[in-house]
């Protein structure tokens, strides 16, 4: 498991930041017909990245496998390489042609949003709060399981992409306070199918909702203020995918009800009319998930809860102060390929 709670500490983070260049990629890259695939196969990475997620390996720019997780032993192995393989600038690495790359870049002139996902719970007063492992009946009496799952209760981060044409469609031409503007179906359905998916908090596999499972996805922008400098808007919307909630069927573990999710959408959005750019794009989706939260064999996972369980999402503008903000949606370049339906509302 890559998201092991105790491993991500000050020492580990300092070690990586000071001594390594980090990349986070889907495992299929090592099997791809590409210079990146050839490079990884040359370091025997394809013999390691076989099934489950969370692989960690270190390699040299010259293509030598140095070890698993970053540690002093890996650094020692690196320093034992001939200087011709580790001196800055010693290994020439050419630029790739666009046709040779396997991980897509954000659309030119597009908009990138960070998407955070978190398990929530309700306090005795009914008010939403962050969930703790004690909120999950299937793990409540299992201290080791609770320890293992602790990190999955911390927010997961991924990214949503909009094309230039799409984000421009969200800017009213002649804004007046009170004016309402429908959010394009393609945008709100993308949000629902690819991003408002609680599954992404527990696994890197799946997490895309079939278009046929989409019950409702709508959004509306309401202009609150319009000045020569700025347009201030609020988002109101609603998303529901999967099963209809049925209290009698939403039992756990291994209850009969398929998973469903519904959430209101609230947003605070600000557009700079001089710079022609959004300066704020905050969205909150405090939803509820119900039904079977299955593993690969559709057996209830420890995070499944009976009834309707709160699960929230938050969106905000990416700042690009780190290359991390260029990770593709879902962490997987295949989210945005032609066949995925990500950039179209074609039925999938």
């Amino acid at each position, binding site marked *: 498991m890559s998201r092991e709670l105790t491993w991500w*500490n000050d020492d580990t983070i300092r070690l990586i930041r000071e001594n390594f260049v980090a990349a986070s990629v889907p495992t299929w890259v090592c099997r791809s017909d590409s210079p990146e695939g050839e490079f990884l196969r040359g370091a025997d990475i394809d013999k390691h990245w076989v099934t489950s997620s969370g692989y960690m390996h270190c390699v040299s720019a010259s293509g030598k496998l140095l070890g698993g997780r970053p540690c002093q032993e890996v650094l020692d192995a690196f320093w034992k390489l001939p200087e011709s393989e580790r001196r800055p600038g010693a290994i020439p690495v050419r630029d790739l042609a666009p046709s040779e790359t396997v991980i897509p870049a954000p659309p030119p002139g597009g908009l990138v949003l960070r998407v955070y996902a978190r398990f929530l719970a309700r306090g005795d007063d009914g008010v939403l709060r962050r969930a703790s492992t004690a909120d999950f009946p299937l793990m409540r009496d299992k201290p080791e399981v609770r320890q293992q799952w602790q990190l999955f209760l911390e927010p997961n*981060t991924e990214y949503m992409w909009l094309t230039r044409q799409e984000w421009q469609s969200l800017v009213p031409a002649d804004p007046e306070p009170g004016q309402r503007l429908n959010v394009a179906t393609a945008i709100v359905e993308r949000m629902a199918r690819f991003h408002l998916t609680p599954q992404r908090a527990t696994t890197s596999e799946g997490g895309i909702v079939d278009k046929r499972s989409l019950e409702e996805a709508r959004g509306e922008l309401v202009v609150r203020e319009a000045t020569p400098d700025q347009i201030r808007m609020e988002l109101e919307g609603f998303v529901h995918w999967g099963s209809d909630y049925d209290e009698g069927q939403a039992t756990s573990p291994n209850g009969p009800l398929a998973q469903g999710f519904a959430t209101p959408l*609230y947003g605070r959005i600000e557009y700079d009319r001089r710079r022609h750019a959004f300066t704020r794009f905050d969205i909150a989706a405090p939803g509820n998930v119900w039904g079977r939260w299955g593993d690969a064999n559709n057996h209830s996972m420890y995070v499944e809860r009976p009834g309707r369980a709160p699960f929230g999402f938050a969106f905000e503008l990416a700042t690009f102060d780190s290359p991390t903000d260029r*990770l*593709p949606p879902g962490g997987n370049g295949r989210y945005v390929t032609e066949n995925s339906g990500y950039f179209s509302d074609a039925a999938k």
Partner: protein
Amino acid sequence: MIVHRILAAALAALTTLAAGLLYADEPRTIGDAEFARLHALVKPQSGESRWMEIDWYPSVWEARQKAAAEGKPIFLMAGSGGAPAAGC
């Protein structure tokens, strides 16, 4: 005493109504303060999601170019369905 009972009943009714609204999926109008609370509730807090404190390159090749230029090893984290830094 009667006034107290009426006030208590009104308070109980309001509490029930508020709880009902909180449980509703359909959107309702919320103020800026509540929006800010909901938004912050989900976002990482200090000390959470610490794997996101690393600068992750989205491409092996880009990381390789930088590692070669700086004389550093490459740390690769990979998931079967997607990059773990963005959805383990």
